[in-house]
């Protein structure tokens, strides 16, 4: 676990973001390599980005990232299942990973906790854990791939999100399911509707057949094996079905928003 600790990305606040934006630009010596800007200019042509203003690498990179969102949405196959593995392939111990230490992870009382459902749904009632546990559950053994590059195979059991969306009468023509979490600084993440309806996208209540431990997101995480790990929110407290792009904790700091696998 010591090694994993060292891999944690420190949390980045908005002020640091401004500094990071500066870091997106190569330093002057390196900039000489791209001084002509011709090749980068070609990239912006590719994405139809307006470069009439002063050249900004950061703005250009953000536009390409949006273009990449569109490309990934286009190649997303709603019927392609993430590979599944035998139980013997499960990574032990499965890593805990967050921008905080495990000691600082949300500690949630399952009896008090409620899952709030908002937005474009017929039934906006909040769900208790007891009620959610009664819904049909399925198990998957899939590979969790972190944006950092490492991967680990885990076993997750829970309710298909598509079943739940049907149950609450969600407008599945909406663009996103936006999840909010119990983390102290408000982790959140948008999930495109096509992925939300994918058969392996799951409201997860168990890890390795046991009630989801605190490290992995008790009482509920959203398991999305077709997305990078940071698009698999833990300690989820609400879902909003919406057409608005509301951003996300890491997405706002520059991680590609679609981040599909």
């Amino acid at each position, binding site marked *: 676990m010591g090694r994993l600790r060292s891999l944690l990305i420190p949390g980045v606040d908005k002020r640091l973001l401004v500094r990071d934006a500066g870091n997106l630009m190569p330093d002057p010596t390196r900039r000489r390599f791209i001084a002509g800007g011709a090749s980068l200019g070609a990239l912006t042509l590719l994405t139809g980005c307006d470069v009439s203003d002063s050249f900004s690498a950061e703005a250009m990179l953000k536009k390409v*990232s949006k273009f990449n969102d569109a490309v990934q949405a286009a190649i997303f196959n709603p019927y392609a299942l993430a590979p599944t593995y035998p139980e013997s392939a499960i990574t032990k111990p499965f890593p805990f990973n967050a921008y905080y230490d495990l000691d600082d992870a949300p500690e949630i009382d399952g009896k008090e906790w409620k899952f709030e459902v908002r937005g474009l749904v017929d039934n906006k009632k909040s769900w208790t854990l007891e009620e959610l546990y009664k819904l049909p559950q399925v198990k998957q053994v899939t590979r969790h791939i972190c944006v950092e590059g490492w991967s680990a195979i885990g076993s997750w059991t829970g309710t298909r999100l598509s079943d739940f969306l049907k149950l609450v009468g969600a407008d599945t023509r909406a663009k996103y399911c936006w999840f909010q979490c119990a983390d102290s600084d408000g982790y959140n993440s948008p999930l495109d509707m096509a992925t939300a309806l994918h058969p392996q996208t799951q409201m997860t209540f168990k890890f390795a057949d046991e009630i989801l431990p605190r490290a992995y997101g008790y009482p509920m995480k959203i398991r999305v094996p077709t997305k990078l790990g940071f698009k698999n929110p833990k300690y989820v407290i609400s879902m909003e079905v919406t057409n608005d792009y509301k951003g996300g904790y890491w997405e706002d700091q520059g991680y590609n928003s679609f981040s599909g696998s």
Partner: protein
Amino acid sequence: MSSLAVSDQPRVATTTIIQPAWVRIVHWINAVAMILMIMSGWQIYNASPLFDFRFSGNITLGGWLGGALLWHFAAMWLLMVNGLVYLTLGFATGRFAKKLLPISPAGVIADARAALTGKLSHDDLSRYNYVQKLLYAGIIVVGVVIVLSGLSIWKPVQLQYLTALFGGYDVARYVHFICMASIVAFLVVHVALALLVPKSLRAMIIGR
């Protein structure tokens, strides 16, 4: 091409083009794309190193993982589109067949020996020796493999058959790294030799 250049060697026609314009253009676009991909790739590597070392922040691009990923997934388009243009034109114009083939082991050994003993001729830059043929053909293959292994890391679900071909996600990361290391090694030799034989560098800039 311009024939304004005055040559004191009238036997050599000033219009002789060693590197055609399309080769020069894709070469330099590729150089920029490669540097952006390698430097941002090093920063991405640092987030979860495969080996017991990290790349110094002085030689990486992006500042942090998120910035490096933005660079990597932007420059990849430049690399891929430019690479496809190169492969298409290379086959269509017959350049690959003419310049890179045939490659014989005996020829490679003989030319490698000549190069190491300083006897390799550089008089005719329009013809590659066997070592050059092997390295240039080899680096094209490495270029194809690094793109395919990169795609299999980027899309291990949508392109899962490609990922499986590489032996799975984790193995594909090593393949991607080894390809990068091969390209960097090639680059060191390639740049050193270009500087040793400056007229080859000139040919890649102005064509002659």
